[in-house]
């Protein structure tokens, strides 16, 4: 493990950089210094990692650093800009960058889903509301922007709280907790589990099998379940199919095997239905309730006077002072 002082020093530097950037009327030079220090601190912490993790690594570094930098810089821009619309646009950048990161993680479906849902749907809603709320203003006149946009509330408090948490997370990441050590995830069981999942989807297996030369005419075995027997290391599997009315064994390996166990969208679909059916239902309920809530909140609010409420509930008016029809009431 790298010396904790280096990591924490980087965290403090990052916090200082954020403070510089949060200064409301900071000069451009100071902002530049802050940006450089912040990026340096961020990459500095990242650079400590491989010296520590000599275990599980994966290729793809080429895309990681650009996306990571884009997302972090955009995030900082988002919280430092004084224009809410720019903040939303910077957030779109963050979402796009993180979508790229999701692709490097092999989560292609999520990468697109995030772009569609976040950048497409949610952010557009935000933009609508922003435009609704912000009267037509000249974007060039600083003074016309409301104060609450131009001045950060408590930059020091915010930076301290945020980066204190960051320090803890860094510490946890670098030490690992007792339960989660970064190197002990064994891929073989996961691959075997993926093969088993694929084995439950005979149509998908056949799609792969027919791509194997000479097995274009292969059929499902009649009256029998498709048997998928993975290799002990999970990198390939043997499938028994019917070819020319006779059982025949075919190997799924290489690219085909990768397709079988790494087909992202199918895997998610199966895992969602298989492992989290109740959560899926609950998510649906949450969305429905959110829709109801939004409808009720956005509905036009009608202020009723005391007497109107009484009348609505079938009681006689009592001639309250705020009653618009008060004059008509005769006090018995």
């Amino acid at each position, binding site marked *: 493990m790298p010396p904790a002082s280096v990591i924490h020093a980087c965290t403090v530097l990052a916090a200082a950089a954020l403070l510089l950037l949060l200064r409301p009327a900071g000069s451009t030079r100071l902002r530049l210094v802050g940006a450089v220090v912040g990026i340096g601190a961020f990459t500095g912490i990242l650079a400590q990692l491989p010296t520590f993790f000599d275990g599980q690594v994966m290729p793809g570094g080429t895309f990681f650093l650009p996306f990571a930098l884009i997302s972090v810089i955009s995030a900082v821009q988002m919280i430092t800009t004084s224009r809410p619309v720019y903040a939303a646009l910077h957030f779109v950048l963050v979402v796009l960058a993180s979508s790229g990161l999701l692709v490097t993680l092999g989560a292609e479906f999520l990468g697109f889903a995030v772009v569609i849902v976040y950048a497409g749907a949610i952010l557009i809603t935000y933009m609508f509301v922003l435009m609704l709320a912000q009267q037509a203003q000249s974007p060039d006149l600083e003074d016309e922007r409301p104060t609450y946009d131009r001045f950060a*509330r408590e930059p020091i*408090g*915010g930076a301290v*709280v*945020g980066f*204190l*948490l960051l320090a*803890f997370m860094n*510490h*946890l990441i670098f030490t690992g907790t007792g339960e989660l050590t970064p190197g002990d995830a064994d891929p073989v069981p996961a691959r075997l589990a993926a093969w088993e999942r694929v084995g439950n989807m005979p149509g998908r297996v056949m799609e792969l099998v027919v791509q194997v030369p000479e097995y274009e005419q292969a059929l499902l075995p009649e009256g029998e379940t498709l048997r998928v027997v993975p290799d002990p290391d999970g990198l390939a599997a043997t499938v028994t199919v019917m070819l020319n009315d006779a059982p025949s064994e075919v190997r799924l390996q290489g690219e085909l095997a990768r397709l079988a166990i790494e087909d992202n969208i199918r895997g998610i679909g199966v895992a969602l239905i298989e492992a989290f059916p109740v959560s899926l239902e609950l998510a649906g309920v949450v969305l429905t309730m959110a829709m109801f809530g939004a409808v009720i909140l956005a509905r036009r609010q009608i202020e009723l006077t005391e007497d109107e409420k009484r009348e609505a509930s079938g009681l006689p008016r009592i001639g309250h002072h705020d009653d618009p029809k008060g004059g008509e009431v005769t006090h018995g």
Partner: protein
Amino acid sequence: MIGSHLLSVLLAAGDTAHASDHGHHSAHFPVALPTEGLGYAGLVLALPLIAMILNGVYAISGVRSKLPAWTTVACLGTAFAVVLNLYLKADIEHPVVVPLFEWINLSWGTGAISAPFGLYLDSLTLLWMLFVTGLGTLIALYASEYMESDVGPAYCRFFGGVSIFLLAMGCLVMGDNLLTLYLGWEGVGFASYMLIGYHFTKPSAVAAAKKAFIVNRIGDLGLALGIYLTWLHFGTLEYSKLFEMLQADGAMAAAQQAMAGGWEVAIIPFLLMAGAFGKSAQLPFYIWLPDAMEGPTPVSALIHAATMVTAGVYLLVRTFPMLELHPAAAPTVAWVGGATALLAATIGMAQYDIKRVMAYSTVSQLGYMFMGVGVLSTFGAAAHVFTHAFFKAVLFLTCGAIMHGFAGQLDLRVLRGLRHVKGWRIVVWTMFYASLCLAGFPIISSGYWSKDVILAEAFANGRPILGGIGLLTAGLTAYYTFRVWFRVCCGPKPDDHDLAKMMGDDHHGDDHHDEGHGEEDHHHHMPHAPKWAVNLVLSVISLAAIGSILLVPEHGWLEHMVAKSSGAGGVGANHHDLPADAGFWADPHGWMKYVASTVGLLGMAVAAWLHLFNRSAADRLRATLLASPLKAVVRAMENKWYVDELYNALIRMPLKIKGHALHMLDRYVLDILVVDGLGRLPKMIGRTLSPLQNGVLQSYAASMAGGVILIALLILVLPMLLDLLGGAA
């Protein structure tokens, strides 16, 4: 079980048992056997109980007559008749236990405690009950007149208290086990408290009642512990079983017993002694008795002179065999008694309040009784209890009559010439006779006979210093007794003007509210002579005192009564046999008659010189003494040797300081830091944290983040701490 084990140990040790070191063996005395057919003896307890309940009913129904007094007198008189009947029927050679009902019977595991409510009727019980119920009846009769100014609820309360006292005293004396005795012991303590504090609106009476109760409690703690240890080591509290065990082998040596049971057994007599000293006003507990004179005079006479204060003597005589559980027990009793006798006598000499003089003389005489028990003369002690009960009752009752008649005047410097006042003859002469008894006038006074036995036994028992103290005290007693009588009853004849000047201020004594008194106008200016009830009672008790002379001498009725009871070990005939050819001085019982008479007469002569013939000489003497180097002694005597002040400084003040310190601790440390602090903590936390709830969303978010950090710290630091601890272990 424990007791039988101890017994077998003792029997096994019996082969090598040697005679106890002071040369006396426990004499055999008959142990009571259960019997049928004497169940009516329970009436002795039931009648005071009935009187008590009736008095309560009277109080509730607002009776405003002398009915409570007559009810009480009737019940107590009947109880006396029952006791008399029991005495006539009883065969004192064969005492009996009359079981009344099962009271306490518990058993758990291998332990058991049983205290059947029964009556132990032997000669000692009957002796005590005769004078307790007899005097109780007479004094209740006296009180019917004495208390007449209080007719109403207070009157009922007074006689209710007297009934409670008689009931409790009956339990104490007649109970057949130590637990019943303890019940009665606490009962008389309560009755005493209730009656001392009869005038509960008077602060001094309340203070005296509290003092009596608290001082008694200290002694009672000893008694309770003694009873507990007795049960623990003998396995029973019933007298008959205890006595059987204790005299199973007549020669059983006290030292052997003590060794077999260890110090827990050896300490039993001392614990019982503490109870006795408390109840009987001995050093160091005597201080409550003089203050107890705040109670109405009949109460002083009955409870604080004649009966209750002799309960300690009764206890020691009753458990006399247990006194031998430690060789130092009896000498301790003797020395405490002797010291108390002398100390109280010296204080009594210097008091001006005649009731207080009598109170100190009671303490002093009780000291004699304990000296008697301590020098192994239970006969002397019991005899003195018996005679003292009558003559001291007379003395108190006459004091009460004077106090009543003179509106609370008790100062012997003011009172004089009562002899010449019409209507006071019986008071004057019964008081004279009782004073003779107290002074130990030869032959014709009962006190002479009983005191002689104790003094002679002190010498016979090889304790000449104690005997000397006793003789000195006898001389002092004669002096202060006649000082009172000469001062109050003799002197120049007072005319009406003088009498009016003698009247008290009405607040000093008992009868401080005289509603309903027939001669109100007259009353406050002139003394009124006692009426028939007081005179009758005084006469009867004086006659009883004279009659007791016949019972007291050696080998007489009283000695016989004691010799057949548990006090047998302390009766002269049972120990020390003198050779027939011994000279005159060899037998203290022989010469003591002459020596004690001489000392008593000397004391009376001094009193006569200073207070009868030459009434101003006393003041001159006092002035001379105050000018001499002895002035410190005189001052000390007048101030009761500063014992109250000593106790105040040694016991009360430290307790008070401690109490204050603890109060401060409680008030300023516990209350503020702990009690209030606990209450204030959430408030402070709330006040500290309430700015956090400022409605600003961001600060809520910061708080949440802080909470997450705290939890993370916990998760992070806790395993590290555990590792550290594990590594250390």
